[in-house]
């Protein structure tokens, strides 16, 4: 991302106007770089054509890892490494191992999934995000269109499409 990048921004006030605008802009052949919103807009990922997030799969796998680690640890320690009779129970008192296995499942699933989320979305304390408009985290939805990706369409034409789709403002934005 070192090269100069130039964007055209469509600013929208309303989430429903935005949803139709995304359909319209994509329908006219313009490739959308990304849409930025102050809060999650339901259905936006569908009109943008994003695939469902695979984070639940990550959570499931990490959860399985937690269960297996917890059970392995408990069986190893209680049955093999230092067997002791406690409360007249079998060394491997399986029902007694369930609470810790459950907690470890939840712990690893939660932390694993959040970790994957942080990495995949590039969320870290020292991240320097590209902020297209300061009002994105307040009350405006911004549709960013990368000029380089839409070289087939004239810039003026893109601006025209954005305006007619209901954008209240159309701005230019460049990053170093």
């Amino acid at each position, binding site marked *: 991302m070192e090269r100069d990048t130039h964007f055209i921004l469509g600013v929208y006030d*309303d989430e429903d106007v935005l949803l139709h605008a995304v359909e319209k802009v994509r329908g006219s052949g313009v490739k959308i770089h990304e849409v930025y919103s102050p809060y999650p807009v339901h259905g936006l990922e569908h009109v943008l054509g994003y695939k469902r997030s695979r984070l639940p799969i990550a959570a499931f796998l990490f959860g399985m890892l937690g269960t297996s680690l917890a059970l392995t640890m408990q069986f190893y320690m209680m049955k093999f490494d230092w067997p002791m009779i406690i409360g007249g129970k079998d060394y491997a008192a399986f029902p007694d191992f369930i609470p810790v296995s459950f907690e470890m499942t939840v712990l690893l699933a939660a932390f694993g999934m959040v970790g994957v989320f942080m990495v995949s979305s590039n969320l870290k304390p020292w991240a320097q995000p590209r902020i297209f408009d300061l009002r994105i985290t307040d009350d405006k939805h911004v549709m960013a269109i990368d000029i380089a990706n839409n070289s087939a369409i004239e810039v003026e034409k893109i601006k025209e499409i954005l305006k007619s789709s209901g954008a209240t403002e159309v701005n230019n934005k460049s990053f170093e």
Partner: protein
Amino acid sequence: MQVTSSVREPLVTGGKSYHDVTYDVARQVEGKPTKLWFLAFLTAAGVLALGSIALLATLWEGIGMWGLNKTVGWAWDITNFVWWVGIGHAGTLISAVLLLFRQKWRTSINRAAEAMTIFAVICAAMFPVIHMGRPWLGAYWALPLPNTFGSLWVNFNSPLLWDVFAISTYFSVSLVFWYIGLIPDFATIRDRATGLRKTIYGALSFGWDGAAKTWMRYESVSLILAGLATPLVLSVHTIVSFDFATSVIPGWHTTIFPPYFVAGAIFSGFAMVLTLMIITRKVFKLEDYITMGHIELMNIVIIITGSIVGIAYITEFFIAWYSGVAAEQYAFINRATGPYWWAYWSMMTCNVISPQLFWFKKIRTSIVATFLLSLVVNIGMWFERFVIIVTSLHRDYLPSSWAMFYPTWADIGVYLFTFGLFFTLFFLFAKFFPVINMAEVKSVLKSSSDKVHK
């Protein structure tokens, strides 16, 4: 723009626009602390300082500083532990269970309730740690760490060890859940700020840019975390109740304990959320976000869980009689009529009778009545744990071992310390963090409406 429906009360009143939401919440963070805040903060910090004398004395001298004796080996320490953990159940319940049930009213209260959860769990966890006597060695007793005795491992058959895993998982998962929700709001404050504040909130916001793809993942993470946190929150108090239920002490050895403890935890947690929210909405002028509708709904949860707790008390008594076990029967008769009768009847009055007042609409929609009853419920729930723990222990198997428990200044001081800690943390949170989840409130402004105000 704001949503007004012709059929339902709006979740947020006052015709707020998106920008109004940002302004109303962010101005608390950006403005100079008020005199009232300083007063409250210094009071809490003072209590913390005072209580730390008792805490240091306990750590220096050992738990002989407390009023425990060889008959009553668990008293205020474990009572306070269970009480604080119980309070720490409302936050995750509000944010996770209500998210799964799509209860949108949760959006204005979940942030502060989760913060309260985290602080309450910190206070709770202190007690078993101090009770270990030499907490600096505690990691060896509580965690399966390799050691020079073999390794001699911790006992995975013990509910006390399950509790270690349950509480630490609960604390860390709640913390992560809370922080994920804070990230977009920190970004809002970052984008309004300049200078040092921009740097600090910029780091806290983890480079959040509000991209649709990130929001999609965020929603996915929230939903899965809610799905994980729901059984987790139920498991935590279940396991806390196992500390008692798996023992052979008459009065503790009861199968009803897990559901009864979970209901009690939600009951006391909602009461504490109400206590804090009524103050917060007043001080920060957030009456349009935390409305009478929110207070009424929380009061309804209190009636339901309070009634479950009441039925559990009566069931316990019935089962003690029905079991035909003389020791069990005696334990319960002794609770109601023995030397601790006053604790038992305080518990009954505060937890069973007083929440029934919320059946009257006038009472459950009155701020003053709700505030007072929320305090009463928390007092009652403290007595519940005291009754369960102390009255079951103080009549030992041999009458020669019978004893009473009298708290010392160190018992009281350590309890005060946790109050100081809890409120100090809460006031710091209320000043420096957005107390209402701005992004989530914005997302419900329109979706629950059929009319839009620009």
